[in-house]
C-alpha cells in the first residue's frame, strides 16, 4: 500500500512540476494587477509542497516497511479482496465504447457495451442478456434521444433508425 501511495504521490509531484513550469511561463503581472499566471503559480507551489511533503513523509514513515510490489504478501491480500481481471476488462470495455461511439453510433456501441458488461458482472447466459440489453437500450434511446432530444451519435445505423422511426 505504502509503495503504491509513493508511486501515486510521485506521479502527482511530476504533474506539479510540469504545472508550475507552465504557470511560470505565463504573464504573471504584478500583485497590484495579477496576470493570468499569478494564481496558477501559487496553486503550483501549493501542489508542489503537498505532493513533495507526501513523498517525503511516505519515504520516512512507511516506505521501508512496505512490502515490495509483486511480493507474496501483497499478492496474497490483493487476490483475496479484488478481481483485477474483471476490472481491467470493464476498463477496456469503457474505452471501447468511447472510441467507437462516433463510428458505430450510440445504439450499436451501447448494445455491445451492455451485453458484455452484464457478462463481466457475472451473468453468463447469452439469450437473457440479449433480451435485457435490447430492453434497456430501447428505453434509454426513447428517453434520451426521442424525448429529451440528446443528439447522441447515430453512426452506421443512422439512416436505418431514422427510416424506422419515420
Amino acid at each position, binding site marked *: 500500500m505504502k509503495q503504491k501511495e509513493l508511486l501515486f504521490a510521485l506521479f502527482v509531484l511530476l504533474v506539479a512540476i510540469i504545472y508550475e513550469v507552465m504557470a511560470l511561463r*505565463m504573464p504573471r503581472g504584478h500583485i497590484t494587477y495579477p496576470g493570468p499566471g499569478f494564481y496558477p503559480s501559487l496553486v503550483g507551489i*501549493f501542489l508542489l509542497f503537498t505532493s513533495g511533503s507526501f513523498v517525503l513523509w511516505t519515504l520516512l514513515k512507511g516506505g521501508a516497511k512496505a512490502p515490495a510490489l509483486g511480493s507474496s504478501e501483497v499478492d496474497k491480500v490483493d487476490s483475496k479482496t479484488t478481481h483485477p481481471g474483471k476490472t481491467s476488462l470493464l476498463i477496456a470495455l469503457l474505452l471501447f465504447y468511447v472510441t467507437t461511439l462516433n463510428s458505430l453510433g450510440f445504439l450499436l456501441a451501447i448494445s455491445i457495451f451492455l451485453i458484455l458488461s452484464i457478462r463481466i458482472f457475472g451473468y453468463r447466459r447469452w439469450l437473457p442478456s440479449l433480451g435485457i440489453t435490447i430492453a434497456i437500450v430501447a428505453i434509454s434511446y426513447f428517453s434520451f434521444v426521442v424525448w*429529451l432530444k440528446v443528439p447522441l451519435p447515430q453512426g452506421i445505423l443512422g439512416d436505418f433508425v431514422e427510416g424506422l422511426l419515420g
Partner: protein
Amino acid sequence: MNAFAGLWHGFSVALSPLNLLFGFLGAVIGTVIGILPGLGPLGTMALLLSLTYGFDPVAGMILFAGIYFGAMYGGSTTSILLNIPGEAASVVTVLEGYKMSRRGRAGAALAVAAVGSFIAGSISIVALSFLAPTLAEAALQFGPAEYFTVALVGLVIMSRLTGGSLLKSLMMIALGSALGTVGMETVAGYMRYTFGMSILAQGIDFLPVAMGLFGISEVLITLASPQENVSLQQVRFRELWPTRQEWRRSFGPMIRGSFIGFFTGLVPGPSPVIATMISYTVERKLDKHGEFGQGAIEGVAGPEAANNSAVGGAYVPLMALGIPFTPAMAVVMAVLLIHGISPGPMLITERPDLFWGVIASMYIGNFMLLIFNLPLVGVFAKIIRIPLYLLMPLVLLLCLVGVYSINNSILDVWLMIGFGLLGYVMRRLEFDVAPLVLALVLGPMMERSFRETMMIGQGDLTVFLTRPISATLLAVGTLVMVAPLLKKGWRQRPSRC
C-alpha cells in the same frame, strides 16, 4: 417578504401537480439509492442532472432535494435489517440498529429511525427557512475578500473533517484547484493548460469529474470487491410500533441529533456522515442504560436524526451565499446554473418562487418519506436483491449517456472515464476525492475574488486581516488547522513528576 409569507407562497408553488410529482419521484429515487449500497445521493444527482435540462429549475431543485433527503431515510433500512449501510451517512446506524434487529426489535429501530428523520428534517427545514434569508441579507455586505476567505476556510475545514490524512486531503485540494485553472482566463482571455485544444477553452466542467470520481470509480470498486449473499429479515407492519419506554428514550437523542446535524450541515465537508458520528459519540457519553454495543435505541435515534438534519443545514450556504460546501450541493448548484440562475444573496429576492418553493417542497417531501419508510419498509428493503449484473451496467449507461448530454461532447465522456480510473486508484489508496471536487468547483471563484481583492486593495495582502468578517473567518480556519496539533502536543508533553 418575511419567512411566513415566503413559505405561504412556497406552498402554492410546491403543491402544483408537477412539483408534487417531482417531489414524490425524488423521495422514491432517494429512498431506493439510499437502500442500495454503492451509488450515493451525489452520484445519483450527477447522473440525473442531464434530465433536468428539460424541466423547470424549480422542479429540478425539488427532485434533487427529495433525492438527498430520501437517501438519508433509505440508508437506515438496510443498516438495520441487513447490517449493510446503504450509504456513508448510515454506517453508524449499523452499530446499534443491526443489534436491535438481532434482538427482535428491527421494527422499533426502523420506526424510530423514520420518525427521528422526520422530526430532524422538519427542525432543519424550519431553521433553513429562517436562517438562510438572514444570512443572505448579511452576505450583501460581502466583498471579494470575504468570498475568497469563505471558500479558503471552507476548504481548510473540509481537509480537517474528512477523517483521513490531512496531507492527502490538502493534496486533493491542490489538485482540484489546479484543474480549476484550466481553460480561458476571464480577464485577459489567456489560454491556460489547454495544450492547443480549443475544446478545453471553457475549462474542465466539474460534472464529468464528479461522475467519474464518484460514479465510474464506485462501479469499478464494486466489481473489484467480493460479493456477499444477503439474507433479508422480514418485518411485519404491527411490529413497527416501539414500546413507550423506547419512545421515551428516543426523544432526547432525536432532538439533540437534529441540532447537531443542522449545525454540522453548515460546515464544509461530508456533513451528514460527520453529524452521525458526533451524535453517536454524544449519545454514548450520555448513556444511562449501558446498552451501547448491544442495540441501544439512542444509537439509532440520534444519528438518524442527525444525518437528515445535516441535509437542511447544507442548503444554507448554497441558498444564502451561493457557495456549495459539499460536492452534492455543487451538483444542486449546477441545476440552477444550467438554467442561467446564479445562486447567492439575491436569489431569495429575485426568485422567491424557487427559494420558497424548494423549502416548502422539503416539508411535503419529508412527510411523504415518513409514509414510505414505515408501511413500505419491507418493499423497499427487497430492492437490495436487484442483482449487480443488472444494476451496475444500468449505472454505467446513465453515466455514459448523462455525461455526453451535458455539452454533447465526447471529450466529457473521455474526461469522466479518465477521472473514473483516477478515482478508482485514489480511493483504493484511501485518498478522499470529495476535496478535489469541491476545490475544482470553488477554484475559479477563489481566483476571481483574489484578483479583485488585490486590484481593489492595490496589492495589499493585509486587507484579508483588516476586514472583520474575513479576519474572523481566517482566525477560525487557523484554529481548525492548529487545534489538533496543539492538542497532540499537550497530550505528549513530559509529565512533571
